């Protein structure tokens, strides 16, 4: 007796950008929370249609930039306090000279926090995604548009959710395994 495969969710296939926009709005309004849309190219207006809020990445990057600036300033003030060195007859604590390093470390830390923050928010790294297991998904990089609703969603029901997706005008609805 082989072990029963666990259902990950349902994948509905649509054939036009207009249909996917409408499907996204309906899914949003139906109250689903754990779902996503897959399209071959960016679709304008998809963010509001899916009810996505603003990304938190900006705050992460701002925090990174501020940290970088403070690290740079702290480092330079500390070094000039720990090992004071007369240079060009300038004062030990010359903010003018420190600003250059401050700017560079702000940019560096901001760049790092942008990349790492994006990975964290997207749940990366991930070995594979369940949608990639089904052949029907191959056209996601060509000319088809998909809505995937996960089984872990509170509103998910194998029968009702399938009927709901079909009522949106899906070309096909398939079950995805984890």
């Amino acid at each position, binding site marked *: 007796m082989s072990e029963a495969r666990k259902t990950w969710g349902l994948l509905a296939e649509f054939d036009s950008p207009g249909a996917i926009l409408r499907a996204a709005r309906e899914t949003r309004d139906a109250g689903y929370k754990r779902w996503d849309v897959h399209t071959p190219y960016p679709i304008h207006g998809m963010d509001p249609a899916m009810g996505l809020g603003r990304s938190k990445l*900006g705050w992460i990057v701002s925090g990174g930039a501020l940290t970088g600036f403070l690290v740079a300033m702290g480092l330079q003030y500390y070094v000039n306090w720990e090992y004071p060195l007369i240079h060009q007859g300038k004062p030990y604590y010359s903010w*003018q000279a420190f*600003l250059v390093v401050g700017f560079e470390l702000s940019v560096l830390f901001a760049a790092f926090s942008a990349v790492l923050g994006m990975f964290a928010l997207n749940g990366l790294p991930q070995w594979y995604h369940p949608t990639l297991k089904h052949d029907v998904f191959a056209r996601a990089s060509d000319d088809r548009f998909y809505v995937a609703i996960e089984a872990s969603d509170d509103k998910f029901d194998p029968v009702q959710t399938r009927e709901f997706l079909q009522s949106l005008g899906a070309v096909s609805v398939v079950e995805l395994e984890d």
Partner: protein
Amino acid sequence: MVHTDRHFEHLDPAALQPPANLWERGRTICMALLLVGLVGIAVAWPMYPKQFYHSALSSWSFCWTTMMGVLFFVLLHHLVDAGWSTVIRRPSEQILAAMPVILLAAIPIVIGMYGNQLHHWMYADPAEDHLLHKKGWWLDKTFLAIRLVVYAIAWLLLANRLRKNSIGQDRDGAAHWTISNRRWSAGGIMLYGLTVTFCAFDLLMALDHHWFSTVFGVYVWSGGVVGGLCVITLVSLKLRKGPLKQYIGSDQIHDLGKLVFAFSVFWAYIAFSQYFLIWYGNIPEETVYYLKRWTGVAEEGSTWWFISILMPIGRFLAPFLILMSAIAKRNPRVLAPMCVLLLFFHWVDQYWMVMPEKSPAGPPLQYVWMDLAVLAAIVGGCGMMFISALRKQALLPVMDPRLVEALSGEHVEEIEHAEVE
């Protein structure tokens, strides 16, 4: 996306003809400013000529750099074949119609210069001034006159040509207008860069002919681009509340906000670069510029340091922190006050560049009314020319091939969603 054609149907050239009394109140205010300014000038000029010439130079420089910022925006639009800014290009071109006012307003400055009231090198003896002797080939009265005429012709030519081509296209929609503007912009941007840089050298940097800074032209120009973009943003926001309501989208406002933000940062970058290199090099001929604007070079000291501290805060730090978020850039209630703040500090910047050369002890606040009189006269004159020009032509380049592109975008979809839901 798919909506482009649908929206071109809305575009009725007749509906884009502005009403004959467009911005009547604004025109009245501009006329009042012009009259008050002219009265102020008539009082100030004979009362204290030296102060008046310096006030005229600083306030004129504010208007001139701002106009150059607008000219840069139009040049850049054609140069990079931009799409999004097509809907705000016509108002920008109509601002360029006020270019003759800027050139006319420079006449008192030229009188002050050649009347030995502004630039010390005009009446200093090169035999007793080694640096002046070395720079004599450039700082020459005849050569300067030729240069000033060349600058004036170049700006008038560029402004007129770009504007005439754009208006010409309204009639037949032929491609050669666009191509001509593209060619003029490619050559024009070089002419523009050189004339703006050298005019900044001749009128502002030469106030102290001992001092020099190679980045000075970029400094003056970058401040002017901030000023020009702020004016374009304010005009666009105003038009968006009126006749261009459904044409200027939140995307365009967002993009203008980004440009204002970016050039405010760019100005700070250039200003710091100039200061930093002079601080680092520590050569007396160079540091004198900042010493005068800090605690002064004379025994009695100076209070200019106060403005030197305010400037990076008002022109960079405050707009940087406030306009950083995309929500702020899209919100006219945040963006418009920031533009006014930046324009005010752009004016303070010109004052800070010019006035310490005349009043080393501190800002001559009892004569600020002279600066304001010149400012009112030039802004009033430019505003009247601008509004008159705006009334004569369509408010959008109605036959421009890029207009369809500019009218599609996220803001169009927002409207569409509102229709669907």
